[in-house]
C-alpha cells in the first residue's frame, strides 16, 4: 500500500493465534475476569446496532434460566457486506472459539450458527472444522455443542428476533421488543446473539488482552473493524482498519479519483456526498457501518442507486406491519412517478415525510432504517431525482 493515513490492523485473520491454547486458557479463567476483559475492551457489536458486547454477555449470564443459548448471526444480507463469509472461510475455529467462551460465561450448552442460504457452499467446510472443534472441547471436558442451521434467502432473518423465529421453523417475522434476546431469545430462553465478526473479536480480546484492543480507535468506537469495500474502487475487497477514520482519508485511499458519494452501512445506511467527506467520521460517533462501504463515481446516477435500494427493501420487507410494507411500495412508486414527470418535484417532500413516518412507526430495524438511505440520497442529490 502507498503511504496511507488509514491504519491497517491484523487481528481477525492473524495467524499468530493457536486457537486451542486460547480456548484452553480462557475456559480456565473465571467468568468475571472474562467479562471484565470484554467490557474493558469497549467492543461493540459488529452486526450494525453496536450494542456493547460485554453488557450483552453480562445480562444473559445474570439470567437464572437453566437453558441458555449462544447464536452466531451469519445471515450477512446487507447489500455491500461480504466480510462474514470471508471470516467463516478463513478462521471458522476462531468463530467457534468465541462462541465457546461466550457459552462458558453465560452458561450455555448449545450454540447455533445461522448461515444464510446463499452461503450453502460453505457448510461442508464449516462442518469439518466443527468436528475438529467438538473433539477438542470434549478433550477439555467442556460440555458445549455447535449446530449449523441454514437460512433460505430472506434478508429480514438477519434481524435477531426474526432469526429466532426462523430457527424455530416459522416465517421470519420480527417479534415485538422488549423482551430482548438476553431475556427471551431462541425458544424464548436467554440468548446471546452476536455477529460473526463480534465473536472473533471477543475471542481475540481474550488472547491479546483488552488493552491492545482498547488503544485502537476512538472513545466511542474502540478497536478495529473489517470493512467490505465495493463499487467504484480499483481495490475492492476486505480490509481490517482501525475505527474512527475520516471518510476523506478513506476515499483518498480507496476511491478512483472521481468519487461522488459513499454509501456507508449498506442499503440501510447513509449516503455521504463528496462535500461532507471531510467532516464525516466512520464509527459510532459519526456514521456507523456493519462493514459495507460502497463507492460511487460521477458516472453513476444516484436515482438508480436509490431505486435499487428501495426495490431491495420492498422485496425484503416481511410485510408484517403496514408502515413498512406499504411505505416501501409507495416510496418506489413515488420516485418513479417524479422521474417520469407524472408528479411534481414537491412530491419528494411528501415522500420524505413518509420515510420519516416509517422511521418512527415500523416494527423493526428494516422499516425504521429505510429513511436513512432515502433521506440522505434525496437531500444530497435532489436534482438527480427529478431530472
Amino acid at each position, binding site marked *: 500500500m502507498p503511504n496511507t493515513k488509514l491504519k491497517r490492523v491484523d487481528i481477525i485473520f492473524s495467524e499468530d493465534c493457536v486457537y486451542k491454547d486460547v480456548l484452553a486458557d480462557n475456559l480456565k479463567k473465571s467468568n468475571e475476569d472474562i467479562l471484565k476483559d470484554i467490557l474493558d475492551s469497549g467492543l461493540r457489536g459488529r452486526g450494525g446496532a453496536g450494542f456493547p458486547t460485554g453488557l450483552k454477555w453480562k445480562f444473559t449470564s445474570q439470567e437464572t434460566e437453566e437453558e441458555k443459548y449462544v447464536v452466531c448471526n451469519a445471515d450477512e444480507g446487507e447489500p455491500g*457486506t*461480504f466480510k462474514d463469509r470471508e471470516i467463516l472461510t478463513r478462521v471458522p475455529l476462531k468463530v467457534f472459539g468465541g462462541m465457546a467462551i461466550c457459552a462458558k460465561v453465560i452458561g450455555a450448552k448449545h450454540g447455533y450458527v445461522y448461515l444464510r442460504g446463499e452461503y450453502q457452499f460453505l457448510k461442508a467446510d464449516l462442518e469439518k472444522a466443527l468436528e475438529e472443534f467438538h473433539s477438542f472441547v470434549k478433550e477439555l471436558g467442556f460440555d458445549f455443542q455447535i449446530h449449523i*442451521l441454514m437460512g433460505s434467502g430472506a434478508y429480514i432473518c438477519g434481524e435477531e428476533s426474526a432469526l429466532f423465529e426462523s430457527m424455530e421453523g416459522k416465517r421470519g417475522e420480527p417479534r415485538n421488543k422488549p423482551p430482548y434476546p438476553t431475556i427471551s431469545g431462541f425458544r424464548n430462553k436467554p440468548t446471546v446473539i452476536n455477529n460473526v465478526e463480534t465473536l472473533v473479536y471477543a475471542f481475540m480480546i481474550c488472547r491479546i488482552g483488552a488493552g491492545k484492543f482498547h488503544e485502537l480507535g476512538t472513545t466511542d468506537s474502540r478497536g478495529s473493524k473489517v470493512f467490505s469495500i465495493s463499487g467504484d474502487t480499483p481495490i475492492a475487497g476486505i480490509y481490517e482498519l482501525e475505527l474512527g477514520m475520516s471518510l476523506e482519508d478513506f476515499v483518498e485511499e480507496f476511491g478512483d479519483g472521481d468519487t461522488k458519494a459513499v454509501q456507508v452501512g449498506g442499503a440501510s445506511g447513509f449516503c455521504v456526498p463528496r462535500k461532507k467527506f471531510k467532516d464525516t467520521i466512520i464509527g459510532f460517533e459519526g456514521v456507523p457501518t456493519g462493514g459495507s462501504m460502497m463507492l460511487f463515481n460521477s458516472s453513476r446516477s444516484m436515482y438508480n442507486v436509490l431505486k435499487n435500494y428501495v426495490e431491495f427493501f420492498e422485496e425484503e420487507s416481511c410485510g408484517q406491519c403496514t408502515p413498512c410494507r406499504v411505505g416501501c411500495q409507495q416510496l418506489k412508486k413515488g420516485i418513479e412517478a417524479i422521474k417520469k414527470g407524472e408528479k411534481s418535484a414537491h412530491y419528494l417532500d411528501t415522500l420524505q415525510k413518509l420515510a420519516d413516518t416509517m422511521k418512527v412507526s415500523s416494527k423493526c430495524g428494516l422499516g425504521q432504517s429505510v429513511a436513512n438511505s432515502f433521506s440522505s440520497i434525496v437531500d444530497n442529490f435532489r436534482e438527480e431525482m427529478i431530472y
Partner: protein
Amino acid sequence: MPEIKELVKDLADKHGRNRESLLPILQGIVTEERFISDVAMTEVARELDMSAALVYGTATFYSFLDTKPRGKFVIRVCKTITCDMKGKKQIVKTLEELLKIKVGETTKDKNFTLLETNCLGWCHKGPAMLINDEVFTELDEDKVTEIIDDYMRNI
C-alpha cells in the same frame, strides 16, 4: 406420488418431526426436487402432524423455497447495486439469449430456470450469480457462455 412420500419420510427421520424440523425438511425437498409442490407440502403437514396452512405459510416466506416448478439448475443473478453497476444487465441478457427464456421462466426441457436475487455477498467481485448452490463471480459474456455450455454438456 410415492417418491415424494419417501423423501419426506426420510427427511423427517433425519431432522425430526417437530416445528423446528420444518425448515430443514423444506430445504431438503428443494435440494432434491428444486421446488416444493402442493403434494409435498401436504405430505410434510401429514408427516409432522401440523396444519398444511402452517407449512404453506413457512414455505412461501423464503425466496429460496420455491413453490413453483423449477428447472434442474436454478440460476440466480444478483441484481443489487454493485453487481448492477458492474454489468448485471448484460449478464442477464446473455443468459436469456443462451437459454431462450426470460427472467422468471424455465426452459422447455426443464433444465434451467433463470431468476434474479438480492445481494449474494460477492459485491467486490460482481457481477455474481448462483447456480443451485455454486457461486460464479466476476462474470462477463464469455465467462457466462462457457459456464452454461459446461452445464449443458454435463446434463
